[in-house]
């Protein structure tokens, strides 16, 4: 077992040190006073607020669409289910830039939506609404997948039990199944929110990269690195990292940390 353990510890150390190195390099780029100054810049604050607002809206939409869809996938069999599940997973594995391109062509002037409706009904493209759309597109996929696993972990007989107690399917879903899957659903929501906060590629295609208009934190990093203003870029990157770290910590706290699920050696 010793060589395997050495290999495993070595691999873990390489992975952890690489991440720590990248983080350290980022943090070490700016002295504290200049970092604080960059964090106080109007553009940084705008990007932070834009990211928080749009990602919160995207999370709301993703919850509204993703929770019922996840329940359906967890509870019902239907023809073509495997295809539907694969389709729903697609935004998670395709580059967001490609997803954004698809949305752009779908909602663009020559796209089928405008063709059918005769006008752009949403004003989504190249606006903050477009940011929400792109973030929702990615977040809903993450949320549906994780929430489906959360519902699958709840014994479906509980719904039948609730029915014998006088609860309609809708109330049984809201008052029994959702609370019972609650911890998994909150984890799913946090994960989806983290993905929405960090969304870049699809947002770039759908909402564009316009300073002080569609400028989320990832967009601010991109715009400022491209224009050589690294201080704001670093400040925004650190904000993103801090938010992501807090969200991941939240998931850890909810799921009981790394100890849960750790196996014991057989006796």
């Amino acid at each position, binding site marked *: 077992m010793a060589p395997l353990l050495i290999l495993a510890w070595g691999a873990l150390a390489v992975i952890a040190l690489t991440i720590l190195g990248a983080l350290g390099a980022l943090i070490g780029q700016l002295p504290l006073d200049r970092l604080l100054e960059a964090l106080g810049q109007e553009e940084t604050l705008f990007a932070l607020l834009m990211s928080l607002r749009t990602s919160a809206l995207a999370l709301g939409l993703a919850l509204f669409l993703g929770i019922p869809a996840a329940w359906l996938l967890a509870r019902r069999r239907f023809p073509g289910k495997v295809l539907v599940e694969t389709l729903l997973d697609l935004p998670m594995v395709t580059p967001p830039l490609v997803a954004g391109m698809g949305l752009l062509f779908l909602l663009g002037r020559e796209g089928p939506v405008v063709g059918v409706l005769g006008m752009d009904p949403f004003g989504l493209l190249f606006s903050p609404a477009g940011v929400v759309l792109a973030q929702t597109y990615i977040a809903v996929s993450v949320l549906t997948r994780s929430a489906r696993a959360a519902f699958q972990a709840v*014994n479906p*007989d*509980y719904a*039948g*039990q*609730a*029915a*014998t*107690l*006088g*609860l*309609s*399917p809708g*109330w*049984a879903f809201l*008052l*029994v199944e959702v*609370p*019972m899957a*609650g911890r998994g659903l909150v984890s799913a929501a946090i994960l989806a929110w983290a993905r929405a906060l960090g969304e870049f590629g699809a947002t770039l295609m759908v909402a564009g990269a316009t300073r002080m208009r569609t400028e989320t934190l990832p967009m601010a990093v991109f715009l400022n690195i491209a224009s050589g203003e690294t201080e704001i870029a670093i400040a925004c990157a650190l904000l993103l990292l801090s938010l992501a770290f807090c969200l991941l910590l939240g998931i850890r706290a909810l799921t009981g940390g790394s100890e849960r699920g750790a196996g014991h050696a057989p006796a």
Partner: protein
Amino acid sequence: MPRLDLEGVTTPFLGPLDLSVADGEAVALLGPSGSGKTTLLKAVAGLIPHGGRIRFDGRPMERTPPHHRDIGYLSQDVLAFPHLSVAASLRLVLFFDQASAGRRAERVRRTLELCAITHRADRRPDQLSGGERQRAALARALARRPSLLLLDEPFSSLDPETRRQLWAEVGGLRRTLGMTALVVTHDPEEARVLADRVIYLRDGKLVQADKGGASTGARSPAR
């Protein structure tokens, strides 16, 4: 008119079965494990599809969804809501009752008392013993005062002493509340204690039995 009337009921493992249960009567279906007893009870509860006709108070149940069937269902798998205390489970069940909040609270208090679980009202299922969990499940099933009680070997996982105690209590409660009951079990003693009449389930058919569970070979319906 019988309170519960099964006519040509079929499930994947059973039937066709005919059975009538009178108002306030408790009938036990006695049969070995895997004979389809639970399936039949689930069909009566509306939890699985079935063939034939099930009538309650003369009304066909086929188009009545489970949550409108006025039943209480108690099984060996308690399926207690892990996020709710004993009292909160009862409040949830009574949440849709038309009665005032005060009357609902009184019903919760009275049901907890009847099922002798008041002292654990604020505990969640994982803080209860096996017997207490069954009492809590019984309280939850009785909270709405259903007209029909369906019992699916509810106490088979408990120790013999607790089991006998709960048999006596449930039998008494059922009579006190005047409920009609259908009990399925593989235990002749449980059938005898809980029910007024015992029917044996053999090869997917119902056979009349005496109170002790011995088959007499009579076909159902028995009344």
